[in-house]
Structure formats: structure tokens, C-alpha cells
């Protein structure tokens, strides 16, 4: 059965939808309670199994949607009822939310399996095997929060999930909180992610409050049902909501200007980068806008703002990625750039291409991150090898950074499987036909080409840079000769790591089949949920294939790859023979531009100078001048204390002691004394107790005689 086909009969499993929350919850509870006594394999197996079962439930939901594409809402509980406010929590089952469920649990399951082996080594390299269980508890907690986010039937529960994934992100970025630069580098990275996201979340909250003020509800159905009425009455209200929401999106999905946390987030273990910071959590913003498309549909200004934010982010991040040397940092900026593509797409009203790119990106970016993890561990194994078997020969290996691409090279022969899957992921990302990334990116570019030629041009340049930095990365890591001992002795990763990679590689190759031009299976699938696109009646826009656009984008990608090959393979090889420490060929020719890019346009420094340092200075001023010198020294000590001292001198001491102390101590003694007095009635004699009852009766009767008279 194809995606788009619908039949009227068939079984439905909608009632099972709440299980998508239950399974990860069970997984995390089991590991939390009994994990301490379980072996590592069992912990990882339970966690992966829980996500696998969640995936199974998501599949059942998909099958049910084939026959009942309109979807449903499974009510769970009435969460809060205060007066008129009633917030219930239900599971939204429709084609959009189930798409997200499938991606989150499907890719999530593969990454969980990968992490069984990866974390086994990681906890040992970092010297604390006890954290193995903690990792999987956090990982399942993340899946639970992400499922809450995508399955919520109202904005408030969506926010609960939104905050939940933010918390998990924070916990996992700082997973090795005692490691990193100066021993707190990772913890600071976690803080940065959390605080930056708080700014975005503040926007989300403003959107939610405004929404409640205008619509009186958080429910998707109720809000979207009233959009047209409210839009006539108060169009600026909806504009405010959508722009506040965009602030939330720029935080969670790492768009300009709040993207700065994502590169630092690479401090987390690699499976975390793959699952949270590439495939799922960061796409929540794209999901949010797609979910809220009825709101965006009535405010074109907000739409174009979204499109521009996405486009500029796509270009901006792609340029930075060119000049990074950390293998994961390149991928991080690439993720920001690709998220920019998605945001640009949904901003242009191209919800299907946006979601399509979200799905394919989840495949190939998860693949790339996991493969980079495999590379890093391969190099670390090489490092280990060098230190143990070739002692004294080479001592520089001690401080070698296993993530720096300058220390790699030639890994193609040492790690063949990793190389091939990495190559597939890179080609998919670069947009080479017929891999998945080509089809989804092509649809976005196609839409941009007749929406706004400026957007189209900028996105095409971003696509050029994308292909270029991926070519650079592949060549630096896998081709040429090893540039360090560690790279020379690197070895391939175990099966548990390579098998998920192979599965993801297959998905990255064939993922484009979801929405081939002409068939548009994915488009027909989504149009049951996404159907408020302006200018298009009765369904989503399904752009037809344009040979011109496809040819240009393929040409751009090929050109970039060839250029990369010439610069890094040819020229780089010759350079390498002369100079011992590796120098990027671009650094030699265009040093000023390159160092701007390496230093990420000094945006972090700019934020420090403009926001963080002034804020700190202001806090310090408040603390030192206002609080300490004015409030404490002057007002408190000079005015209050001295004044009070003078007052006490003025008033006679007996009054002071008698009244002030008397009241303070008196209250305490009164209660204590009262208690002690009442306690004396507790004699222990039954006769006295009976007497107390009797007195009570007498008191009641005397009262009754008084009132009944």
C-alpha cells in the first residue's frame, strides 16, 4: 500500500496511542530502580527495547491512519480545572504528529542501539562506568519528553514536552559535567544551551499567554477553529503570537540570533548530538510552525519573517562550517544551516517540503553524527594503541585531540565501513541525486525559485557551501595520508555500532522515495493535517518537478565537490609535504576571511560584549553599589542601625527591653506555656478523660439550653 492511498475499511489502533508515552516511561523507571544491579547490556537493551516498542506503536498508528486519515484525539486526563479554565491532556493522532513519532522513535531506536556499544567505551575512556545507567535513563527520559511534545493536543502540553526536551538536552550536554576546559567546560556548555533556550521559551510563553487571552483556549482544535474570526477582529494579536512563537523556534531550532548554543552542545556524548542536537529535538521548532500553520496562514508578514530568518541562518551557518577543524563542530554548523532550510521552507508555506527535509535530514544527519562518533572512537583506539605498544617512540600523542580533523587523514583504509556510510551521508547532505537529501532540498529550492528570487539565490549559495564543506571534511578525514600516529593505528568499530550506521545509510539512500515528484506520497499523507495554505484550495501545494531547478542545484553541488577536491586533495597534499603541522589551504590564500569564519564571525564575543558583560557589570553594580554600599552600608548601617541605636538611647532602656524583647520572647513562651498547660490535662487516668467528655457534654447542653429557650 502506498502512503497516499486511502481505504475506508481496516482496523484502527488509535486507542494504543498513549503507549508511546508509557513505554519510554517504563524503560526509564526500570533502569532507574533496578539498573544498579543489571549488567550494561541489559540496561542498554531495556532502554532500546522501550524505544523499539514505541516505534512499533507508532507504526500501528500509521497503519490506522491509512484507513482513517483524519486522525483522532485520545483523551488522557483533565489536567487542571480552575473555574472556567480547563486544560485537558490528550494524544493527538494525525498524519503530522505520527510522522514525528515515527522519526523520533525510529531514528531514536537505532541511536539507542548504537549507544549500547558507544557508551560502553565512552564511560571507560572518561573513567566512570557508573554513569552508563544514567545515560540511558536520561535518553529514555528524552524520548518520553519528545513524545509528549509531538503527541500533545494543546499548546500547554506541547510546552511541557518542549521544556522536558530542553531539560534532557541540558542534562546530556553536561553529561561529563566534570570534564571539558578547566574541568567545567562541559557544564558551561550545558548552561549556555539552557539559558539561551530559556530566552526562546520566554517567547513561547508570551505566545501561549497571548493565545489564551485571544482564544481562551490552548487546544489546537479550538484555537485553529477560531482563527478566522479572531483574524478579522484583531489581526495584530495573531501577528504577535506568531512572532513570539518564532522567538521560541529560534531558541529550540538554533536559528539566528539564538543559534549560539548548538555548537557548544557538541560537548555531549556523540549519540546525544545525533539524537537530540541533529535528528529530533532541534526540529521541534519546524514541527511547531507546521502545527501552527493555520495561524501563520493569516499573517503573511510573519511568514516572510520566518522565511528570511531561516534563509539567513542557512547561509550564515554554512559559511562558518567551512572553516571549522573539529569534526563535530562542522556537523553542528551544518545542522544549523539545514534547520535554516527547513525553517525557510515552512516560512514560505512549503510545509510538505519542510517536513520532508526534516525526515530525510534526520536520517542522514544522524548517520553523519554517529559515523563521526565511530571515527572519533577509532582514533581514540589508535591513540591507545600508540601509547601502549610504541612507548617512547612518539610522545606528542598525549595531548592529541581525537576530534580535530587535522589529526586524521587516510582513515578510509583503516575504517572502511565507516568511510562508506560517511560518504553516503555526506553525498545525501550535499544533495546528490538520487540520495534522500537531493529530493527534499530540491523541493525547498523549487518553492523558493517562484516565491522570491532573493531567497532562492541565498539558499542556492548555502547549498553550494554545504557541498563544499562536506567534500572538505571527507577528504580531510578519510583521504590522503594519516597526519598522526593515532590516525595511522585507528581501527574499525564493532558491529553494534556499524549495523545501525548501515541501516541509516540505506535510509539516507532511499529516503527520497517517500515523496518522489509526480507521486507525492508524503504530500498526500500530510495534506490530511496540513490544509490551510493560502492560495491553494482544499489541500497542500505539491510542486511539480522542475528540471531547470534540479539541474542547477545538482550542478552547484558537483561544482562545489570538484572545487573541494582540487583544493584539499590536490593542493592540500602538496602543502602537507612541506609543512609539518597541518594548515588549511584556504588559510594560506585568504587568511583574513578564513580567520573570520574560524572565529565564527566573533558572534559569541559580540554577545559577551553586548549582553553578557554589561549584564554582569550591571549585576555587580547592583550587588556592590546598590545593595552593599547603598543599601547595606549606608541605609542599613548608617541610617537604620545608627538611627535605631539613637532611638534606643532616646527611649529609656527599660521600655526597650520590656516591650521589644517582651513581645518576641513572650509569644514563644505563650505558645510553649499554653502547650505545657494543656498537656497537664493529659493525666493518663481514664476517669479524668471521661470527666473531660462529660464537661464537653455539659458545655454543649448549656449552650443548647441557651439557644433553645
Amino acid at each position, binding site marked *: 500500500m502506498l502512503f497516499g492511498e486511502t481505504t475506508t475499511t481496516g482496523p484502527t489502533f488509535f486507542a494504543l496511542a498513549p503507549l508511546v508515552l508509557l513505554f519510554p516511561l517504563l524503560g526509564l523507571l526500570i533502569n532507574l530502580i533496578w539498573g544498579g544491579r543489571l549488567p550494561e547490556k541489559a540496561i542498554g537493551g531495556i532502554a532500546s527495547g522501550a524505544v523499539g516498542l514505541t516505534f512499533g506503536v507508532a507504526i500501528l498508528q500509521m497503519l490506522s491512519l491509512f484507513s482513517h486519515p483524519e486522525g483522532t484525539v485520545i483523551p488522557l486526563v*483533565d489536567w487542571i480545572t480552575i473555574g472556567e479554565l480547563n486544560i485537558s491532556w490528550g494524544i493527538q493522532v494525525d498524519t503530522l504528529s505520527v510522522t514525528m513519532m515515527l522519526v523520533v522513535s525510529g531514528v531514536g531506536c537505532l541511536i539507542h542501539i548504537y549507544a549500547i556499544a558507544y557508551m560502553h567505551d565512552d564511560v571507560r575512556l572518561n573513567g566512570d562506568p557508573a554513569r552508563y545507567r544514567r545515560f540511558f535513563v536520561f535518553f529514555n527520559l528524552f524520548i518520553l519528553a519528545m513524545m509528549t511534545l509531538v503527541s500533545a493536543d494543546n499548546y500547554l502540553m506541547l510546552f511541557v514536552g518542549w521544556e522536558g526536551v530542553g531539560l534532557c538536552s541540558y542534562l546530556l550536554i553536561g553529561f561529563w559535567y566534570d570534564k571539558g576546559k578547566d574541568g567545567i567546560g562541559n557544564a558551561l556548555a550545558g548552561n549556555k544551551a539552557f539559558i539561551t533556550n530559556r530566552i526562546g521559551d520566554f517567547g513561547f510563553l508570551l505566545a501561549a499567554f497571548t493565545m489564551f487571552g485571544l482564544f481562551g483556549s490552548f487546544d489546537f482544535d479550538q484555537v485553529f477553529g477560531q482563527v478566522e474570526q479572531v483574524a478579522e477582529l484583531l489581526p495584530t494579536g495573531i501577528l504577535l503570537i506568531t512572532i513570539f512563537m518564532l522567538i521560541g523556534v529560534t531558541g529550540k531550532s538554533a536559528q539566528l540570533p539564538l543559534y549560539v548554543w548548538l555548537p557548544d552542545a557538541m560537548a555531549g556524548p556523540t549519540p546525544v548530538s545525533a539524537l537530540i542536537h541533529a535528528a529530533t529535538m532541534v526540529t521541534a521548532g519546524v514541527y511547531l510552525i507546521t502545527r501552527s500553520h493555520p495561524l501563520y496562514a493569516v499573517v503573511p508578514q510573519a511568514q516572510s519573517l520566518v522565511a528570511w530568518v531561516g534563509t539567513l541562518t542557512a547561509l550564515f551557518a554554512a559559511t562558518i562550517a567551512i572553516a571549522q577543524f573539529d569534526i563535530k563542530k562542522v556537523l553542528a554548523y551544518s545542522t544549523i544551516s539545514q534547520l535554516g532550510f527547513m525553517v525557510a521552507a515552512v516560512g514560505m508555506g512549503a510545509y510538505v517540503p519542510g517536513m520532508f527535509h526534516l525526515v530525510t535530514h534526520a536520517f542522514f544527519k544522524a548517520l553523519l553524527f554517529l559515523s563521526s562518533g565511530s571515527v572519533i572512537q577509532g582514533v581514540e583506539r589508535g591513540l591507545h594503541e600508540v601509547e601502549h605498544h610504541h612507548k617512547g617512540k612518539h610522545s606528542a600523542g598525549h595531548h592529541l585531540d581525537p576530534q580535530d580533523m587535522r589529526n586524521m587523514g587516510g582513515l578510509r583504509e583503516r575504517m572502511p565501513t565507516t568511510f562508506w556510510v560517511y560518504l553516503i551521508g555526506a553525498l545525501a547532505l550535499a544533495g546528490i541525486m538520487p540520495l534522500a537529501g537531493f529530493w527534499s532540498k530540491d523541493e525547498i529550492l523549487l518553492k523558493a525559485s517562484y516565491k522570491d528570487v532573493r531567497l532562492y539565490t541565498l539558499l542556492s549559495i548555502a547549498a553550494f557551501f554545504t557541498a563544499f564543506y562536506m567534500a572538505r571534511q571527507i577528504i580531510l578525514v578519510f583521504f590522503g595520508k594519516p597526519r598522526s600516529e593515532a590516525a595511522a593505528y585507528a581501527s574499525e568499530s564493532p558491529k553494534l555500532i556499524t549495523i545501525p550506521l548501515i541501516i541509516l545509510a540505506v535510509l539516507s539512500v532511499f529516503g527520497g522515495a517517500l515523496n518522489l515528484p509526480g507521486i507525492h506520497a508524503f504530500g498526500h499523507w500530510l495534506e490530511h493535517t496540513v490544509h490551510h495554505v493560502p492560495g491553494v484550495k482544499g489541500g497542500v501545494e505539491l510542486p511539480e518537478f522542475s528540471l531547470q531547478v534540479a539541474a542547477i542545484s545538482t550542478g552547484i553541488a558537483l561544482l562545489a565537490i570538484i572545487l573541494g577536491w582540487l583544493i584539499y586533495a590536490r593542493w592540500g597534499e602538496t602543502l602537507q609535504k612541506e609543512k609539518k603541522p597541518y594548515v588549511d589551504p584556504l588559510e594560506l590564500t585568504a587568511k583574513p576571511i578564513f580567520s573570520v569564519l574560524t572565529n565564527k564571525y566573533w558572534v559569541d564575543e559580540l554577545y559577551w560584549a553586548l549582553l553578557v558583560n554589561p549584564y554582569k557589570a550591571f549585576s555587580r553594580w547592583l550587588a556592590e553599589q546598590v545593595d552593599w554600599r547603598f543599601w547595606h552600608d549606608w541605609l542599613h548601617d548608617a541610617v537604620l542601625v545608627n538611627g535605631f541605636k539613637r532611638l534606643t538611647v532616646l527611649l529609656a532602656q527599660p521600655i526597650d527591653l520590656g516591650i521589644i524583647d517582651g513581645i518576641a520572647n513572650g509569644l514563644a513562651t505563650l505558645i510553649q506555656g499554653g502547650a505545657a498547660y494543656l498537656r497537664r*490535662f493529659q493525666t493518663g487516668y481514664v476517669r479524668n*478523660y471521661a470527666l473531660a467528655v462529660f464537661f464537653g457534654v455539659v458545655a454543649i447542653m448549656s449552650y443548647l439550653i441557651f439557644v433553645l429557650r
Partner: protein
Amino acid sequence: MWADRLAVLPVIVIGAWAVLLTVADLYIPEHRRRITAILAALGLIVGLVVNLFIQRHNPQTAYFGLAIADGFSSFLNVLFLLSGLLGIAVAHGYLQRQNIARSEYYSLLLFSISGMMLMGMAADLIIVFIALELLSIPLYVMAGFHRDRLDSEEAALKYFLLGAFAGGFVVYGIALIYGATGSTRIAAILSAVQSGSASPILLTVGAALILVGLGFKVAAVPFHMWTPDVYQGAPSSVTAFMAVGAKAAGFAALLRVFLLAFPTLSDKLVPLLWALAALTMIVGNIVAIVQSNIKRLLAYSSIAHAGYILMATVTLGQSRLMADAAAAALFYLLAYLLTNFGAWAVVIALEREEGKGLSIQDYAGLGKKYPALAAAMSVFMLSLIGVPPTVGFLGKFYLFRAVLEGGFVGLAVIGVLTSLVSAYYYLRVVVVMYMQEGEPVVNRDALLHWTAALSAIAVLALSLFATPLFQWATQATLYAAQ
């Protein structure tokens, strides 16, 4: 006839199970006492299932209007059966450690529960009295279960003597009401009062006497004097059960009889109920401050909480509010059940032979040595104070709301101020656990630790999802049998 039996089926199940358990126990060997406990728990679970299945929205009277099965009674049945299950969980290991593991304990527990359930269903004052005796007599025996120890015997005798004394007031009150209205049916009393054929003096005095008797059961001041001595002397597992079950049963009768039968007497009874509630809150909370024994502390705490629940009765006569107030009282009882059993589970976990380990000082250092247990105890203490996010906070919230809507601002203020005072002694336990050094000894008893852990989780979790629970309590409205 079958419809009648079906209506009271949960009581029949528990009563019959208790009888069968007594007989079956003869054939269970000494060293297999665990089986008796499991069988008793099974009976309670069967009761719960039956109660769930016959739960109905339409009230069903049985046996010519003597008993009634409605939402109110089925909510209370759940409460009683739960307290039975938790009562078994905290008792099993404890009885063995104290060398008083005799299996009639479980039969007595079931008999007492059947009495409590009957109390919730009573639609006739005679049934109220029978249920009162049925639930009390097993409790007298259980209070003296530690018959080798003097204070246990003393507790049983005190409880019995004073209970009989209070029971006398109830019977006298019923007799006066019968004299005034010619009936003991709640519905008939109401119609007699409304038609004006009843003598108001006899009726009011009768109602006041019933209030005295039930006030004794729920430990309201000044009928509370037995509580600290009995709670301290009785085996801890009995105290835990008694503090919740007997109190809930007393309130079941108090709410049903007073709110249904005497709304027209509100101008005379409300000041009385007001004073009783205020006095109970004040005395209970203040005397608790000077206690150094944890069992006595919890005894005064139990008195204080009776005062809070009594606040629900001052809405008597305001027909719009009574249902809400009754629902708030039911919710408070459920919150109290969870919190109290949790706290007692911790107390029992620390109690050693010869009554050692019961001083608050014995809790010093618990936070360091047994962090989970100390955390659970802190949760219970916070819930007893009424701090969010615990279920105890919501219990107080709903109660105070009902009281304020009834216009009793003064009483609400007393309630808030006394719960402020209560923070002093509840937090002292927390302070001792975390801020003083010590070497606490904790019994290895998995069942106890699970009870404490699950109660703590429930206390926290239910506070987040309190709305459905409160709605369930709201649906459990009272009906008078026709």
C-alpha cells in the same frame, strides 16, 4: 431481595471473607503465617473489584431503606479497603518483629473494615450504631494485641471504657431522636422535621448527643483525651490503621447523618460545629509542639486533622455548598490516608523492640544514612503541613475554599494559622533527620519501604493530577434513602 444483597455486596464479601479466614486460619501451619496475610489482602482486593463493578450513579437502597449504596459509600469503600491493604502491608513484618504474629490479627482487621463500610452505607441510625460497634470492637482487641506489654493492655482498656461511654451517648441521642420524630430512618427524620411534627428540643439534644459520640470516634476536642494514650500504647500497625480507618468511618456517619437529616437545625448546630472544629484545630496543633515521642506527635496531628475535616460540616444547611464540602472532606480523607500511612510506615521502619526508636531524636542522621527513607518522610511531613506540591496542600485548598464560600472567614483564618503552627513540629522532624548527627537503626522490611516509597510518590503525583480525583469525590454525592 437479591437487589438488596447486591447493593451491600462489598460489605457481605468482606464480612464473609473475615469469617472464612478465621476458619481457614486453623488449617494454616504456624510458620506459614504469611499465607493468612496474603489471603486477607486478597479478600480486600476482591472487595475492591466488587465495589468497582457495582459502582453506580443511581443510589440504590437496600433492606427497606436501612442501607444505601451510592457514590459516597463506594468512594468510602475504596478508602477503607485501601487502608486495609496498607494496614496489612505495614503490619506483617512488624508483628513478627514484635513477637505478636498471631493470625487472628487479619480476621479482626477485616471485621473492622466491614463495620467501616457498613457505616458508609448506613441510612438508618440503628445501622449507624451497629456499624460503630462492629468497627470498634475488633479495634479494642487489636489495640491490646501486644498483651505482654502493659501499655498495650492499658490502651485497649482505656479505648474500650471510653468507647463504651461515648457509645452510650450515641444510643441516647438515637433514642431522643426516635422520640422526637418516630423513626430512626434518615429520610423519615428529615420529612418529619420538614413537616414540623418533630419536637425541636428533643431533636436538637439528640443530634448533639450523637455529635458527642461521633466526635469521640474522630478524636475531636474535648472528646479526644483517649487518643494520645491509645495511639502510643497500641501496636504501631494498629495505630496507623485506626488513625485513618476509624476516623474516616466516624466522618462518614457524621457527614451523612448531619448533612442529610439535620439541615434545618443549622442555626443551632453550626455554632457548635464551628466551635468544635476551631477547638480541635487549636488544641491538637498546639499540644503537638511539646511532644517528643513520634507516636504521640502523630496522635496530636491526627486530632488536628480531625479539626480540619470538621470544618466541612459548618456548611450545614447551605444546600448549594454541602455537596462541595462533603467532596472536599472525602478528598481530604484520601489525602490523609496516603500521607498518614506513609508516615507510619517510616515510624514502623524505625521502631525496635521494647518501644525503642520512637523518640524524635532517634531520627537524627536519617537523611545521611537512609536518604530515600528520609526524603519520603519529608514528603509526608510537608503534606501534613499542606505545602505544595503535595496532595495535602490540595486537600486543605479544597476544604478552605468550601469554608470560605460558606462565609466562615474566621474559621478559615484559624485553620490557616494553626497549620502555620503545625509547620513548627512537622519541620522539626525534618530538621532532626537532616541537620543532626546520629546513627539511626532501620529494620530490613521490604514491604515497609515499598509502602513508604509508593505513598510518597502517590502524595506527589496525585497533587499534579488532583482534578480527576476531586471530580470523582464530587460525584460521590450523598443521598438520603427514600
